[in-house]
């Protein structure tokens, strides 16, 4: 199945909000970033609407962290346009940073400072330290603020960065795999905090590997691969592009399904049948089952995980081909 970009059919044209009138918190179009001869970002597009929780998905090394570091003004883009909160992340870094908070995936802190000191430091650097909110979050995340950060585990260092970010007044949260070190209990606390942040009207860009988390939290999501956006939309919209799994038992032996359009992985065993069907062809498939007489029917929409795996499964199969093509057409890097 070919993968079509959902919201913007022509790559390179700035992503636009289709809701009309909803302001855009992050607008990235055609973003390119090279490290030597490696192309970390290759024309990436991303639109995050104000007030939404936006999932940012992609396999390791696909360019999620690079994108966020460009948004923070730590990296300078080679080409393309990036705007956040209506400002240029490189030129207006200080102004932008007054209004955002950041949690990196790998939090390294000063080993001699305590967690409490680090949280206070960030709050004061941002001039919005709220002692009450800070203490409340420390309690919810069960973080001991008197411990030196050198003695913290990865998860506890992540909590320090999370508490510092969530205790701030920032209207935009840039979270780069913020929960990769948290246990399931803390994951639940995190999800509550993000829902509260959304209720307060904050915007969240959540890069994540935990698909259940993205499914639970995100209004819309973008999937990137090799530095390029391959899907963008709501979870429902993305599901439309994919297949529904059907398991059924029919009165008469299940025949005639194989001839229909959009049926995949068909397995028949007498009156038992299971298959997957493209969402656009669902109607025809169910009609045919109806003709056969349905005794039982189980159908479920694809989980994000299936969507993700199928997407990359397909893509990975095509990988060598694509790399070869790129090698032929791409100008060779200067030696």
């Amino acid at each position, binding site marked *: 199945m070919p993968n079509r970009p959902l919201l913007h059919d022509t790559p390179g044209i700035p992503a636009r909000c289709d809701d009309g009138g909803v302001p855009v918190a992050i607008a990235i179009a055609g973003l390119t970033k090279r490290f030597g001869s490696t192309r970390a970002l290759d024309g990436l597009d991303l639109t995050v609407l104000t007030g939404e929780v936006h999932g940012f998905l992609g396999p390791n090394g696909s360019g999620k962290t690079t994108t966020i570091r460009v948004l923070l003004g730590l990296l300078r883009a080679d080409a393309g346009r990036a705007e956040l909160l209506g400002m240029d992340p490189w030129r207006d870094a*200080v102004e932008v940073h007054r209004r955002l908070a950041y949690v990196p995936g790998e939090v390294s802190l000063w080993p001699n400072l305590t967690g409490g000191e680090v949280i206070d430091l960030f709050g004061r650097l941002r001039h919005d330290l709220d002692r009450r909110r800070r203490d409340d979050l420390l309690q919810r995340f069960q973080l001991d603020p008197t411990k030196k950060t050198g003695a913290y585990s990865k998860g506890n260092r992540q909590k320090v960065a999370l508490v510092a970010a969530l205790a701030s007044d920032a209207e935009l949260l840039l979270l780069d795999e913020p929960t990769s070190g948290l246990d399931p209990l803390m994951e639940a606390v995190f999800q509550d905090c993000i829902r509260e942040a959304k209720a307060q009207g904050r915007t969240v860009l959540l890069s994540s590997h935990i698909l259940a988390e993205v499914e639970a939290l995100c209004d819309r999501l973008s999937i990137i691969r090799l530095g390029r956006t391959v899907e963008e939309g709501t979870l429902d919209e993305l599901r439309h592009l994919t297949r529904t799994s059907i398991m059924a038992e029919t009165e008469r032996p299940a025949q005639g399904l194989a001839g229909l359009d959009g049926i995949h992985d068909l397995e028949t065993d007498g009156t038992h049948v299971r298959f997957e069907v493209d969402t656009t062809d669902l109607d025809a498939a169910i009609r045919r089952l109806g003709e056969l007489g349905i005794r039982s029917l189980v159908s479920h929409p694809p989980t994000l995980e299936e969507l993700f795996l199928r997407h990359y499964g397909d893509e990975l199969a095509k990988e060598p081909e694509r790399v070869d093509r790129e090698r032929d057409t791409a100008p060779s890097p200067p030696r």
Partner: protein
Amino acid sequence: MTSLTGTVALARFIVRRDRIRILLWIVPIVVLVALTVVGIEGLFPDQAALDQTAAATQHNAAAIAFNGPAQGLDTVGGQVAFQFGAPGMVLVGLMSIFMLGRLTRGEEEAGRLEVVRSLPVGIHANTLAAVLTVAAMDLVVGVSTAAVLVAQGLPPAGSVVFGVSFALVGLFSGAVALLVAQVTESTRVVYGVGGAMLGLAFVLRAIGDIGDGTISWLSPIGVAQKARPFADERWWPFLLLVVVTVILVAAAVTLAVRRDLGAGLFAPRPGPPLAAPSLGHPIGLAVRLQRGSIVGWGAAVLVFATAYGWIGPTVDAFIGQNKALAELLAGGEGGNLTDLYFATSIRVLALIATGFAIQSALRVRGEESSMRADLVLATPVSRWRFAWSHLAVAYAGSVVMLTIAGLGAGLTYGVAGGGMAGVPRLLGAALVYAPAMWIMVGLAMALDGFTPRLVGASWVLLLACVVVGFLGVVLGLPRWLQDLSPFQRVPELPAASLDLLPLGVMTAIAAGLTLAGLVGLRRRDIGRV
């Protein structure tokens, strides 16, 4: 011995990974030995010149304080041992401390050792591999040094003793580093304690050599010099070094067996749950992060300063008017020997203090490559303010270090009988080095701004300044090359008169380099690379 499984493979891996670093330590030391011989032969072309300088140096407390006991100075070999013995041993000691600290506690602190330990590798394999590598480096330095001296026609017995003294001081220093690495959790502390040990060794032997030589036995460098290379060699002092080294290693092994991976001997204590008011802006953070380093370097400078001040009055008592020596001491035009002595002392102190200045300036890069800068720069703190906070500590800290140097030397000199009039003179003599130190800070920042991968070269530049400052004359380096070191451009108070022009020019150069570096930092990507 399953606890040592994998040692050979790890040692091979270390040598492969650090081959450039290993060569960058060994080759310059051996080359400096060779150059010293050539320099001495040029400085004292015949026996008459050697006899003359030998006679004068007997009575030159200053020279003895900086170099070592006057023994065999009427031979080329004896002169080589006198001029390059102590500095060479300090270099070999630093090599062992930095390599061993890096390969043991450094690997542990970085978390890399955890991965290695999870492999079918014995628990002591990495430590033993590190020890073997560093010991091999010490031996290579010792053997090459002896070989170079013999090749240049010096007596084999003295050459071998000199080479062995390098190797043994290296092994001793490595053993100290190994022990400290078991006690502390921080690699920086290993470097700090190791450096302090060498500094103390240098000072103790200076005090001992000025007196009857007893106190020198407390210093590994002093003990090595007791083996008298090129002056009726004797081997038994080496035995003392070997025994102490073995005891240190045994102690380190005992401690290593008892502790957990990643931990030190003492568990970290809890700290304050709230930040102090000062920890609310970049400068406050920079001061807090560098507090330990300021105290450590300040203490080192103070120890050296008081030792030099204390020796001061002794220089008055010794008599020496040898012109060649006066030049050797200060590279100047003669004058009062005590003033020359203090001019050289202050220069030594300024060079030590520059170690702090560079370490402080390199914090900018350290924060960046540890990714901690990301978190600070994601708040409304500009790159300019972020970098400047650490540079401000480097700039101001330089002045603090020089103040400690001047006051420490001046007050001790006064208490020891030299008179309190020396206090303001020595303080002034120290403070004029500030612009030279700022140039080194500026160079470090410029490297960071434009070639961040090469910031480590700042240390090489400092080492070059040290070599020029200590050995420029002996090595016969061309004048223009010596003048590239900013420290050679500083008026040598109290022996020379104050000249404000070079100080102004140097301050401007320092400001220009710093500014250029900041501009470079603002234009480039932030990150590990």
